[in-house]
Each structure stands twice: as structure tokens, then as C-alpha cells.
């Protein structure tokens, strides 16, 4: 059961947070000027806080249920985890700060932080997953990492196609062709879930003794968490028609 709890939050992050990463990666392609980029960001703006928290929760589940694995996984991959965290901070700060001051250069700089941070996140995840999946280290790990990053990017495009309108939507749909936006999104989401599941199968997942206490608490609260997220999805279910707060 503990394994399913971990899988739920980790895979939830890959699918939901993965879309934000992908949109950030493809931001220069989707939005050609400041105004367009702001509209593209509006596609993920209401969701990104609620999406990245799935990863925070994954870390929480690791700390509570798999404390030994948490230490091994993080401290054993310090060369990947530090860039991952820095990329995460850069991406988030780019989102928050781009609109705080007027000026093309200010916004261009933070848009750059969003793009660099998103690529950093995707590649760090790629390196980490290829280490867990294939046991690859060093520069050679960059090949599978790039593949993972491409999946994130495609997933982001698929999500953007579902959220944007007009020309932005057409740009986002470049890879899905005529196959339908929802279907493309389902496909890229399934690809991320697949990678996540395969990596998870390679991890030594033995729950610690606190699981007996913690797992029922988590199972009890999870429907509430999903319901709160569903409220956000429902509130922002329509396509973006203009810039958001960010």
C-alpha cells in the first residue's frame, strides 16, 4: 500500500507538474513576444502552485514512509539534485517576478529564467531517472535524459494546446496533427507515467515502521486533497482568453 501512496504522488507530479515544465521549455516557441508569452504563462498560472506541491508531497511521503531511501536517493545524487532544485527556484522566480516591473529587458530576463529553469528541471529529472532506470552516470546519461526532456516538452505542448486559443493553440498543436488535443495529452501523460513506473520498479521500496501509523492518515486525507485540486481544475477549465496575474 505504501508503494501506491508514493506512486500516486510521484506520478501525479510527473503528469501535472510535467505539463508546467513542458510549457516553460517551449515558451520561446509558443510566445514570440512579451504579450504572447504572458498569455502562454496564463495557461499554467492557476495550476503551477497546486502542481509543484505534488513533488513536495512526494518528498514528504519519502521522509515519512521511506526515510532510508530518501537519504540515499538525494544525497547519493547530489550532482543532480542541486541543479534540479536551483532550476526549480529559477523557474518559479521567473514566473513570479516577470510581471513585477515594467520593461522589456526585465521581463525578457525572467522569461529566460523560466525557460532555463524548465529545461534544467526536465534534464535533471532525465538524468535522475536514467540513473535509476539504466544505471547510467556521467555524460552518457545525457542521451536518455534528453529523451525524457523531449517527453516533458511534448507533454507541455499538449497541455498548452488544450488551454490556449487561436494562433497560440495552433502552434502548440504542431505535433499532434489531426489526432485530437485530448488524445495527445493522454498519450504524453501515459508516457511520463510509464517512465515513472519503470523507474519506481527499480527502487528498493521497503517501507519503514512508521507506515502503519502514517498510511491510514494519508489515505484518509487524499480524497480531500484531490477534491481541492479538482475545484481548481473546474474553476479554470475554460481556455485562456487573456493574461493572468503573473
Amino acid at each position: 500500500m505504501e508503494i501506491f501512496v508514493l506512486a500516486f504522488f510521484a506520478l501525479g507530479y510527473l503528469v501535472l507538474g510535467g505539463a508546467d515544465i513542458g510549457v516553460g521549455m517551449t515558451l520561446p516557441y509558443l510566445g514570440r513576444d512579451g504579450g504572447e508569452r504572458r498569455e502562454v504563462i496564463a495557461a499554467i498560472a492557476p495550476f503551477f502552485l497546486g502542481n509543484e506541491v505534488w513533488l513536495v508531497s512526494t518528498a514528504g511521503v519519502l521522509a515519512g514512509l521511506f526515510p532510508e531511501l530518501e537519504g540515499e536517493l538525494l544525497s547519493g545524487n547530489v550532482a543532480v539534485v542541486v541543479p534540479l532544485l536551483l532550476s526549480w527556484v529559477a523557474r518559479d522566480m521567473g514566473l513570479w517576478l516577470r510581471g513585477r516591473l515594467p520593461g522589456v529587458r526585465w521581463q525578457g530576463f525572467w522569461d529566460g529564467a523560466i525557460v532555463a529553469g524548465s529545461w534544467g528541471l526536465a534534464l535533471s529529472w532525465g538524468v535522475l531517472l536514467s540513473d535509476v532506470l539504466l544505471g547510467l552516470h556521467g555524460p552518457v546519461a545525457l542521451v536518455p535524459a534528453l529523451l525524457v526532456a523531449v517527453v516533458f516538452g511534448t507533454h507541455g505542448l499538449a497541455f498548452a494546446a488544450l488551454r490556449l486559443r487561436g494562433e497560440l493553440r495552433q502552434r502548440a498543436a504542431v505535433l499532434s496533427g489531426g489526432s485530437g488535443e485530448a488524445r495527445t495529452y493522454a498519450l504524453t501523460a501515459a508516457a511520463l507515467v510509464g517512465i515513472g513506473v519503470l523507474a519506481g520498479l527499480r527502487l528498493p521500496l521497503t517501507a519503514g515502521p512508521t507506515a502503519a501509523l502514517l498510511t491510514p492518515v494519508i489515505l484518509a486525507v487524499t480524497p480531500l486533497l484531490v477534491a481541492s485540486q479538482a475545484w481548481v481544475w473546474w474553476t479554470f477549465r475554460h481556455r485562456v482568453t487573456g493574461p493572468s496575474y503573473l
Partner: protein
Amino acid sequence: METVDLARLQFALTAGAHFLFVALTLGLATLVAVVQTWATLTRNPVHLRMTRFWGQLYIINYAMGIATGLVMEFQLGLTWSGLTEFAGNTFGASLAIETLVAFFLESTFLGLWIFGWNKLNRWAHLAAIWVVTLTAYASAFWILVSNGFLQHPVGYELADGVLRLTDFGAMVANPTAQVAFFHVLGGAMVTGGFFMAGVSAYHLRRRTAEQDLFRKSLRIGVGVALPATLFTATLGGLGFETLQPTKAAVWSGDAARIAAAQAEMVAAHGPGDYLPPSGWVHAGGLTMMIAFAVMFFFSGLSAVLMLFRPAVRGLRVWHWLLTLMIPVPFLAMLGGWVFREMGRQPWAVYGLLTTAEAMSPLTETQMRVSLTAFVTVFAVLIVTNYLLLARAARRGPGAVTLGDRPIDAPSTEPALSL
């Protein structure tokens, strides 16, 4: 510096920075929620603008709190895997509950509050800020349960070289955690109160637009700061009852007591230096107490002055001083935190695991690179965010973008200035 000192410095800088942002976040969230409640009940436009203005400052501050907080969470496993392996089965439970029961909801509802402005039903929107505020309290509570365990471990057993949780209730009811929670909550209200009063005083002194809004805000700020200062000090006094023997001895400065505490630890754990660094403990404690004296005197005086309308309108010396007071609660928070955490040394889990044993098997180069990277990035971001916070505070309610139009309405601004 040894590798473990680098790791300590990295964690201390991350946690210290996080604590500064959290203090204001917790305090301001409460004030914003109360003001929004009033605005929702009365539909008074002044209170609506107040909600948006203070809400905007709250969000600028919050963003940096998230960035430092998530790095801090991952640092536990990254640089302190010895701690998670040894004690993860105990305080990891409260960390897990914090992320799932508190922060998950806080983050989700914060997104709903920010982006759902003018889109959600106004009662639903009000509910969102209250969920954010209450889950922020819950978050602080579970973090302090985790921290309380490290300060004063209870409800555990030691088997096969690792800790196991035997009594979850005892861990939650740990007085070291309970007292600290209310102390920190009070401190956050002091920080929020002085911040609101100080920013309002700036606008009253400069006679900017919205004088009515800032007179109201100043009264709320001062009205919160005085009782919160007293409450926090009382809880802080109770906290002294929960000090570890070595910290209490070092704080007392009594040589005989210090020697006795050290001898007791040597008898229990073998030869070694078991005393926390005296300089840090005293500096932290004194900073906290001097700041308390200043805040108590000043908030008391301000509570009297705010009863006189002419003073609120035009006593510029007082306005100046109120604005200058904004950093003092932050200083007190940091002082108290240094006192608490430095006083725990040399232990990561008091009496059970030393800080050196808690460290991950990382090389000095790895630690140096990591420390340099985080410090550089955070230094730039923290300075940027505080400058932006000050700018938004100075520019006043007229320049607030939060909630100024429905989220999906077409922008009226020209594309270039977006």
C-alpha cells in the same frame, strides 16, 4: 571549515532565510484574511482595496518563502541523510503530515485565491484565504513538532541503531513543540502587525492618496502588535522551562552549572565537548530580549497615540519611528531562532545523534559547490524580492495588480508594457 560546517552553514542560511519570509507570511495572511472577511461582509470599497494592497505584499513575500522552503525540505535528505536514516521513522512522520495535510492544501488554495479573484463567488474566495491561513498554521505546527522532537526527543525507542516511533501522541504533545508553536505564531503576528503599521505610517507621513485606508491599517497593525508582543514574550518565558540542561547552563553563565552539565553529558555519552557555543547562544538570546523591550515599549506607546486622531493624521516623528520599527521583529525572530538552534549543538537529535553523525557522506568539494550555488542564487533573489516588496509598499494601493480585473478579461494595457 570542515565539510560538516559547510553543510551546517548551508542549512542555517536556507532555514534562516525561510524563517524571515515565513514570519511575515503567517502574520500577514491572518491580517489579510480578517480584512477580507470585513470587506466581504460590508462590501466596503476601502476594505476591498485594503485586501488587495496587503494581499499583494503578502504574495511577493510568499513566493520567496516557497523557494527557500522547498530547498530546505530537500536539503534534509541531501546533506543530512544520517539524520533521516537514524531518526526518519520518528520526525519524518510529522514532516510527511506537514506536506500532505497542510502545505498541499495551502498551496492549492493559494493558487485559487490569487487567480480566482473576481472569478470565484466572493464567499468561496473568502473561504480560500481562510484555508490558506489555517493550513499555514497547521504547517507551522507540524514543522515545530518535527523540530521539537530534534530538540527534546520523546515517544521513541532505539532498536538496531535507529529510532522508532512508539507514541505518536507524546511526540505531538511534546511541550518543546507546543510552546514553540504558539511562540512562533505570536512572533509572526508581531512581525505582521509592525509591518502593517510601519508601511501605513510611511503613507501617512508622505500624505499619499488613500489616507483613510492607511489610518485604518495603522490601527489594525498597532492593535495587533501590542497584544502579540506580550503573548509572544509570555510563551517565550514558558519556553525557557523547556531548555535542554546544557543550553540552560550556558545561558546562565554560571561556571559551576556549566561544569556540572558537561560532566553529566560526559558520564552519559563518553568524552567530548557537549556544550553549545556560548557566544551564539548569548547573542541570540540577548538580541531577542532587547528587541522585545524595544517592541513592547514602542507598541505600548503607539497603542496610546493611535487613540488620538491628530496623531494618527500628522505626528510625523511617530510615523518615522513606526516605519523604522519594521525590521525589529525580524531581528527578534532570527535571534530567537539562533538561540534555539545553536543551543541544541553539538546534537542534531538531542542526546542521541550528533550533528557530525547526521551529515551525508558528501565530499568537501560537493559541499562547497552546493553552498556557493545556493548562497549566490538566494542572495540575489532575496535582495530582489525585498526591493520589490519595498517598491510595492511605497507605490500604494493604486498600483496593485492583484485582483484588479477578472482573470480572463482581455488586457487593456498595450502589449509592449505587459
